[in-house]
Structure formats: structure tokens, C-alpha cells
């Protein structure tokens, strides 16, 4: 299985390549990608240089253009696709059907991957994307069990990529409106979930309070591990109870299921984290690369170290091993 690694900056890109990535995914410095954070992402020149660096080491570069085009501003996304193709991207990761149509018609030879943001999670949807736009790979939403994935891969004619490690969404990628509700901005349209411009932290004694827009979303006790300031990972009062109503602040780790995913026909494992620093990228990529060739017992020891770097300092296999149904 290929290891698909994140890069938010050229320095992180280089770390990912040097640590053993098979492919690195990244985006331009604008709203065409779902990690449109301040100080992050690539200029055209930086992407070109990074692709050259990767190609010289036999590593692929995937360019994420995985937000949905704003009506009347389609040229921003078209231009981004034009530039990514011109610079030599190995594949474009797309979510918007209109943009997929543009790329398929303008650059029929360009490899097209379906972003997780497209929420393509069933046979019919994926077959449609393969037939209509020539999609070569689909990144599955994090809502399927390993058994679901195995059934699906047998019924479709394209490669399957799954998230293996890193931040965990609320399992409605491309359709989640929680960030829009609280801030007016979303990962789907603006490329930002819970934008930093709307985040505030307050230290009150040994407690830390996080706020998003007008909402207090969490209070962490002294020494309690923290999570991202997103509504989905906020604490809510529901009836008589208070706690995490959507999901806990915890990261995804499905490395215990590597063999099952391989047997299920998965082609590539994706590491989430374009917003993370280069130190994280280097450590996670190198560890997961080693894990791919380690036996099951050695794998657990390798991965345990990564837990401390995870959101809430905890990990879960999430829906891949669904226990709540």
C-alpha cells in the first residue's frame, strides 16, 4: 500500500519525502483547498520546486483542490487546476463535480482522485465518478467499517485510499455545517474549519476555556489534554448530562487494521495533517513507513509513541471498527 503524506509548507513537504512518503499531498495558498489557514500552503513557485524535488526521488505529488467552487468565481479553481497540471502534479484531488468535469474535459490524461470531501461512499456514486470523469482513485469518507470497504472495493473499478492516521472529522465530510453555523465559514466553501480568526482561548487559573465565535465550546481542567477548537469536539449539556455529544477530542489510528485493509483491497493509506508542523510530519511518516513492513507486535510499539502527538493525546479506530451499531 502507498503512504500518502501531508505537507502544509515546502519544509514539511521535504520532510515527508525524506521520511519515505510514496506521495505527498498539498494545496495552493487560497480557498481552493480545505486547509486554507494563515501562513500555510504553497505558492506556484514553491509547488513547482517541490514537485521537482519529489520527482527526483521517485515520489508523487497530489494537489488538493478540494473545496466547492463559488458561483461566479469558478475561474479561481480552473486556474488552480491549470497551474497544478502545468507544474507536473501526479494527481489532482477534487471534490466539486463541476471542477472534475473541467479537468476531465481539458486534461483527459491527468490523473483525477476523488477527495473525501466529495463523500463518495457507495458503489453507485463511485461508479458514476469513474464513468463520468475517469476518476482513478477515491478517498473514502471515514464512515465505513473494514468489512464495508472490502465489499466496496470488489464492486468498483478504481483504486481506494483510506485515512489511516491523524485528525478525525465528524464523518460528514463535504456536508458538515457546524463551522458555518458558528462562524459563517466552512471547510467546504472557504477551506477553513473553525477558522483561527474566530477562535479564542482564555486561561482561568489552571483551567483553559476555548471559544469559537460566540460559543464557549470547551473547558479543560488542569493538565487535561486538549483538542481542536471545533464544535464537533465541544462539550454539550444534553438533558441531564454534560459531555462530548458528537465526538471526543481524539485522533484516528487504524494501524492495528493494516493487514485487514490490505486484504480488503485498499491501495493507499492517507495521513491527515497538512496543518501540522514539519516535526510531526517527519515523525509520523517515518513511523508509519516502518509499520508497513513490521509485524503486528512490532507495529503496536512503533505507533504508541505517536499517541502523545495526537489530539487529546488519544487515538481511536473510529468507524473502521464500528462497535456502536
Amino acid at each position: 500500500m502507498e503512504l500518502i503524506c501531508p505537507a502544509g509548507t515546502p519544509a514539511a513537504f521535504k520532510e515527508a519525502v525524506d521520511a519515505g512518503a510514496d506521495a505527498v499531498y498539498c494545496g495552493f495558498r487560497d480557498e481552493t483547498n480545505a486547509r486554507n489557514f494563515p501562513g500555510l500552503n504553497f505558492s506556484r513557485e514553491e509547488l513547482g520546486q517541490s514537485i521537482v524535488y519529489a520527482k527526483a526521488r521517485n515520489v508523487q505529488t497530489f494537489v488538493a483542490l478540494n473545496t466547492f467552487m463559488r458561483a461566479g468565481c469558478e475561474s479561481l479553481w480552473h486556474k488552480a487546476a491549470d497551474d497544478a497540471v502545468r507544474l507536473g502534479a501526479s494527481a489532482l484531488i477534487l471534490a466539486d463535480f463541476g471542477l472534475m468535469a473541467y479537468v476531465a474535459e481539458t486534461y483527459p490524461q491527468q490523473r483525477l482522485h476523488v477527495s473525501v470531501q466529495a463523500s463518495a461512499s457507495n458503489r453507485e456514486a463511485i461508479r458514476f465518478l469513474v464513468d463520468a470523469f475517469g476518476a482513478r482513485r477515491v478517498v473514502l469518507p471515514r464512515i465505513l467499517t473494514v468489512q464495508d470497504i472490502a465489499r466496496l472495493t470488489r464492486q468498483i473499478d478504481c483504486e481506494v485510499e483510506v485515512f489511516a492516521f491523524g485528525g478525525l472529522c465528524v464523518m460528514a465530510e463535504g456536508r458538515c455545517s457546524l463551522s458555518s453555523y458558528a462562524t459563517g465559514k466552512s471547510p467546504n466553501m472557504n477551506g477553513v474549519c473553525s477558522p483561527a480568526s474566530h477562535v479564542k482561548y482564555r486561561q482561568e487559573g489552571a483551567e483553559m476555556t476555548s471559544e469559537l465565535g460566540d460559543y464557549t465550546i470547551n473547558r479543560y481542567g488542569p493538565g487535561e489534554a486538549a483538542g481542536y477548537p471545533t464544535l464537533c469536539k465541544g462539550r454539550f449539556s444534553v438533558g441531564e448530562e454534560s459531555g462530548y455529544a458528537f465526538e471526543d477530542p481524539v485522533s484516528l489510528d487504524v494501524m492495528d487494521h493494516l493487514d485487514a485493509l490490505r486484504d480488503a483491497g485498499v491501495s493507499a493509506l492517507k495521513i491527515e495533517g497538512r496543518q501540522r508542523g514539519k516535526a510531526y510530519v517527519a515523525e509520523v511518516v517515518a513511523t508509519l513507513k516502518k509499520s508497513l513492513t513490521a509485524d503486528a507486535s512490532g507495529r503496536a510499539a512503533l505507533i504508541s509513541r505517536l499517541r502523545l502527538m495526537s489530539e487529546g493525546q488519544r487515538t481511536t479506530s473510529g468507524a473502521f471498527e464500528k462497535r456502536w451499531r
Partner: protein
Amino acid sequence: MLVPSVLAKPLDFAPLALIEHFARRIFDRVLKVHPDLFERLGDYRSKRFCFSPSDLPLHFVVIPEGRVVEVSRGIRQPTADAVISGPLFILLALLEGRCDGDALFFSRDLMVTGDIEAMLALRNALDDSVIDLAADLGGMTGPLAPLVISTARYIRSRALRGKAL
């Protein structure tokens, strides 16, 4: 690792002007060696960033655009657009991109207040700049450079030993 009190205590009395002069020289050196920092920082370069080492009695305010460095002492933090606080060695490791800021936030080693967008931009700009403070310090010390660099790297590796990024 925290700064030992035997080293932190003298800073209660050391002349602020002297500390400020030394901090400004390092800052100027970093900006000279890494001019790309400004480009990635964009409009946030005019913000007042405050660094408050929790194990030192000092606060450092930096305005990248004006190459301003101000040092103050006391419990009250100076006025700033964004403030980051945590142990000195953690702040320095973050400055060099040797640690992941999110991981340090999750573990509560770091606290960020004020304009989070500005601080995020600075974090990302620093992370891309491949700063090596030991080498930059060495570059200021002429013939003593090899000794300064190796000593600074030794202290850095000791200070960050066992730290998950």
C-alpha cells in the same frame, strides 16, 4: 526541561537594556538569514507578538515588520496582539520547528491567547523557515563559533530529551 532557577534568578536583576540588546541581535540575525519568513507571514508581520517563557521572569515582544524587540519584566504581560507562553526551551524548539505546535497545545505545554490567526501565521512561517538557533548564534561569535554551536546544540538536545516532539 525548565530553565534551572540558578540560571533564571539572576534575570530578576540583570539590566533589561542588556537583555534587550542581546535578544535584538539574535532576532536581527534570524531575519537576515531567513528573509523568507516575512513573505509567508504576510500582513501579520505588523502584529505585536509576545513570548512569555513561564520559567523566566521576562516577556519578549516582537514586531517583525519594524524589527522591534522589547523586553519587560514582571507578572503582568505587556500589551500584545497575540501571546504565547510555555517553558523557554519549548518556545525555542517551536521557533526552530523542532516541535509540533499542535502537539504542544494538546499536551498543555503551550498556551496561546489573543489573535490566534496571527499566532498561527507566525507558527507556520517559522516552521517553514528551517531556523537553527545554534548555528545563528554561532554566526555572531566569530572564532568562537564552533564552540558556541556545539554547546548550544548539546543544551538543546538535553532540554528536549524525552519530549514528544
